[in-house]
C-alpha cells in the first residue's frame, strides 16, 4: 500500500464515515506500520459495524502486530463466531496457540484450516510439524511428511479471494515466528503445562494479593462459573460461587451496552461498595476477572492490581485450554 492509496482510503472514509472503507484503511495502516492509527480506525469502524467478520479479522491482525496477543485471539474468536470456518482466523488462532506452547489447540485450529483449504502448503507443513512434535504424524489427512522447511501457515487474505477466505503470504515477522516458536519464558506458564491443577487455580492470584488483607480475586467464565481464584467472606464462608452466579453474563452485557451507546470497546467496570472497591475486566471468551480490595484502597491501585490479575488469568486460560 502506497501513501497515496492510504490517503485515498482516508478520503473515502471521510466522505462516508459509515462506509466499510475503514476495513481496508485499517489494514493498510497496519501494513505501513502505523499501528496506533490502524487500531483507532478499526475500533471506530467496529462501533458502527460490530458484526462484520472481516473487520474483526483486521483488528485481530492489528493487535497481533502490536503484540497484544490475547486481544488478537479474542478478535479471531469473534471472527469465527460471525463467520464459521473463517480461514485466516483459524490460522491466526493456530499460530497463537503454537506460540503459547498449546500444540493440541494449534493442531485443532490448523487441522480445521487444512480441511477448508487442503492446497495451502504452509498450513499443511506446519500441521505436519506440530503432529510430529505431538507424536501423531500418521494422522495427517494429507499425508504430510513433516518436513522442517520452516514454511509458515499463511494468514493474509488476498483481496481477490476473500470470498473463499484463502490466504496469501504473511508478513515476514509472522512467518519467522511460526518457523521458530518462542520458548515459554514465563515460569508460571511452563509450570502449569501438563495435567490441569485445580488447586493451583484456586490460589492463582494469591501472590498478587499477598499483603493486602480483605482482598479477593476471581476469574469467571461466561456462565459465571468460577475458573480460578476465590472470594472469602469476613465470616470465613466461600462466596465465590454466589458472586459468580450474580455476575454471569456481565461481560457480554457490558459490551452490548457500550456498543449500543456508541462508546466503543469495554475496558473495565469499577464498583464502589460500602466495604470494598471492586474492579472488573473482560477476559477471553466473555470471561470476567474481578478483584476486590478494602474500601479505602485508592482507585489507581485497584486498577493496577486488576491489570495484573487480568494478565495472570489470561495466561492461565491459554495454558489450560
Amino acid at each position, binding site marked *: 500500500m502506497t501513501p497515496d492509496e492510504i490517503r485515498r482510503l482516508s478520503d473515502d472514509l471521510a466522505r462516508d464515515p459509515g462506509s466499510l472503507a475503514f476495513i481496508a484503511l485499517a489494514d493498510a495502516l497496519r501494513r505501513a506500520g502505523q499501528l496506533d492509527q490502524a487500531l483507532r480506525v478499526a*475500533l471506530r469502524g467496529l462501533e458502527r459495524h460490530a458484526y462484520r467478520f472481516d473487520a474483526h479479522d483486521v483488528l485481530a491482525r492489528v493487535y497481533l502486530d502490536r503484540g497484544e496477543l490475547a486481544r488478537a485471539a479474542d478478535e479471531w474468536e469473534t471472527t469465527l463466531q460471525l463467520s464459521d470456518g473463517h480461514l485466516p482466523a483459524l490460522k491466526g488462532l493456530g499460530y497463537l496457540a503454537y506460540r503459547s506452547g498449546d500444540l493440541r489447540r494449534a493442531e485443532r485450529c490448523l487441522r480445521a484450516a487444512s480441511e477448508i483449504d487442503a492446497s495451502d502448503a504452509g498450513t499443511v507443513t506446519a500441521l505436519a510439524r506440530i503432529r510430529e512434535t505431538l507424536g501423531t504424524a500418521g494422522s495427517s489427512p494429507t499425508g504430510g511428511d513433516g518436513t522442517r522447511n520452516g514454511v509458515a501457515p499463511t494468514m493474509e487474505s488476498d483481496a481477490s479471494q476473500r470470498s473463499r477466505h484463502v490466504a496469501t503470504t504473511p508478513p515476514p515477522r509472522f512467518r519467522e515466528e511460526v518457523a521458530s516458536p518462542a520458548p515459554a519464558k514465563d515460569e508460571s506458564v511452563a509450570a502449569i503445562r501438563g495435567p490441569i491443577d485445580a488447586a493451583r487455580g484456586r490460589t492463582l492470584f494469591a501472590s498478587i494479593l499477598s499483603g493486602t488483607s480483605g482482598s479477593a480475586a476471581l476469574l469467571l467464565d461466561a456462565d459465571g462459573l468460577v475458573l480460578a481464584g476465590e472470594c472469602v467472606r469476613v465470616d470465613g464462608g466461600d462466596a465465590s460461587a454466589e*458472586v459468580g452466579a450474580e455476575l454471569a453474563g456481565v461481560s457480554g*452485557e457490558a459490551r452490548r451496552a457500550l456498543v449500543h*451507546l456508541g*462508546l466503543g470497546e469495554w*475496558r473495565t467496570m*469499577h464498583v464502589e*461498595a460500602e466495604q470494598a472497591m471492586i474492579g472488573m475486566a473482560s477476559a477471553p471468551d466473555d470471561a470476567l476477572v474481578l478483584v476486590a480490595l478494602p474500601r479505602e484502597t485508592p482507585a489507581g491501585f485497584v486498577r493496577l492490581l486488576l491489570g495484573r490479575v487480568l494478565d495472570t488469568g489470561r495466561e492461565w486460560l491459554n495454558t489450560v485450554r
Partner: protein
Amino acid sequence: MVEYRPMTSAYGEIIGALVRHRGVVAALVASERDGIAIAAQTQVGVECDALAALGASLYRRARLANLAAGFGTTRLVRLDAAHGQLFIAGRGDLVLIVVAEGGANVGLLRVAIQRGSEALA
C-alpha cells in the same frame, strides 16, 4: 440537540443538574427492578429505554454480587469504555444512570452523581 421526556419535578432537578456537566449525553432515572425509565434527558440518538434496561440490569447484578460477597451496599457502578463512561448509582428501588463521552470530568461527575442518587426518594 436534546430530547426530553416528561419528567416529574422530583427528578427533573437531579437530571437537569447532571446534564449540565460537560460531556454528559444522557441522564435518567429508572426502576431497578424492571429497568423502565421514569424520567430522562438524553441527546438525540441515545435510546432511553434500552439504556434504562441495560443500566438497571448491570447495577442489579453488581448489587447482588456485593451482597453475596459481604461487601455491603452498592454506591456506584462505573463502566469505562474507549470513548466514554456509563455511571449507575442506586437508592432504594431506583437507579440514576448517566452517560458521559470522552472529555467529561470524571471526578466531578462522580461526586455529582452520588449526590444525585442520595436525593432519589
